[in-house]
């Protein structure tokens, strides 16, 4: 664990892997809930967790390094299931990368259990880990990816909450509403949420 200061009120904590970052995030949330930690923002990412809005970051940094971080516990709530039509325009490209038939992509994807590692890019956009294979981004990003597109890039799966430009490989579509600010909570996916994709309809 490496603790890097980010200005006068924040610490960026760097760990060795995505799993460690998820475990650290869970532990920091637990400590904030118990009152041991006061932070305005706890922002997990690929290999880091950012603590922002700290009163005494230097003192916290000294304490942090001695904290035991148990593996991320499974969250109590149910798994979020998202119904997916595996009809994306990049199915064939992904299948070619993996050396499998296009309908195998759907089978592999729907068989995995995912976990939201972190959010970013857009409100409600989660970076989901759990896919046993990786795939590169598209060489040329699309100027508009439709809302509800189920997409892959690197080790991550994501679902576009709204239409936006994007360079991920599109493998399917879901009607799930990823973000609705009139709903409580607004985001369907938050860091730590477990997710499964359920195939629907004919290919």
């Amino acid at each position, binding site marked *: 664990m490496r603790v*890097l*200061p*980010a*200005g*006068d*009120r*924040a610490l*960026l904590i*760097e760990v060795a892997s995505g799993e460690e970052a998820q475990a650290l995030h869970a532990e920091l949330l637990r400590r904030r809930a118990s009152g041991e930690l006061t932070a*305005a*923002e*706890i*922002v*997990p*990412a*690929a*290999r*880091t*967790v*950012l603590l*922002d*809005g*700290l*009163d*005494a*970051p*230097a003192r916290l940094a000294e304490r942090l390094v001695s904290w035991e971080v148990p593996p991320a516990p499974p969250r109590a709530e149910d798994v979020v299931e998202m119904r997916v039509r595996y009809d994306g325009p990049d199915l064939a490209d992904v299948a070619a990368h993996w050396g499998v038939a296009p309908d195998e992509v759907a089978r592999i994807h729907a068989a995995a259990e995912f976990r939201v590692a*972190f*959010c*970013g*890019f*857009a*409100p*409600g*956009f989660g*970076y989901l880990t759990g896919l046993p294979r990786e795939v590169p981004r598209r060489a040329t990003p699309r100027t508009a990816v439709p809302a509800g597109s189920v997409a892959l890039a690197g080790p991550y799966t994501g679902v576009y909450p*709204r239409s936006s430009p994007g360079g991920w490989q599109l493998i399917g579509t879901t009607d799930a509403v990823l973000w609705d*600010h009139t709903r409580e909570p*607004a*985001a369907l996916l*938050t*860091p730590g949420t477990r997710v499964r994709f359920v195939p629907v309809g004919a290919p």
Partner: protein
Amino acid sequence: MTDRALVVVRAGALTTLQDRGRPGHAHLGVPRSGALDAPAAALVNRLVGNHADAAVLETTLDGCAVRPRSAVTMAVGGAPCPVTLDGRPAAWGTQLWVPGGALLDLGPARSGVRSYLAVSGGVAVERVLGSRSTDLLSGLGPAPLTDGTVLPLGPPAMVHARVDVVPHPAPPTELVLRVTPGPRDDWFTAAALRTFTTHPYTVSSASNRIGLRTEGPALERAVTGELPSEGMVLGAVQVPPDGRPVVFLADHPTTGGYPVIAVADPADLSAAAQAAPGTPVRFVAVRRRG
């Protein structure tokens, strides 16, 4: 019942609604947003007797014009600009009594970039995650204003104004940003770190509410790999592949994949919000507090 509404007659280049933003949702990918020159927004709210979290109009360079449907108190602050009420000169930086149907016009900024217009009662559009701020990065909150937009106003708060007039800010001839190094200063060469705090930069015209972009010497990286996405703070000085530092402002993305060489003191960001393109910028290394 009086019609408490404000008609936008001329929206200007970019006029948005801003309050104190929606911090606390960065883990969901939601930017903090809020008025870029927060002290200026707070002052105009005080002048009209609003609570500090009331939504105000934030203009960009060329002002805007509005017509209230019923009598209201207004105040203009931030970037100094000519103000007229039905074509007659009116005061900047103090309370203005504006009758229903009258036209209040904020002209182009004489110096600075962003003027603020507060209306008694505040603009009362729907809140999104607790805030009425327009977020230009992710599209949360009300869209930027257009000619003809009708904005509902809240009931006057009756908070007694504790100020009658605000001090006129001196036009910033140079933007000085105090920075502390890191978290990714070790991704840059020693020469780049020296250049960063010794060579002058200028504000780029590509600056916006997301970031203050700069022009000047490119900062060379010592580590050339890709940085996995990591959380970003307000004031982070990110260095994209072109090597020119970008200072993150209120609508900044919550995570990013370019290394942050240093973090600017948030207290200096209201000056950054008023630094017009071409303004010289100096990054001055200071000791970390806390």
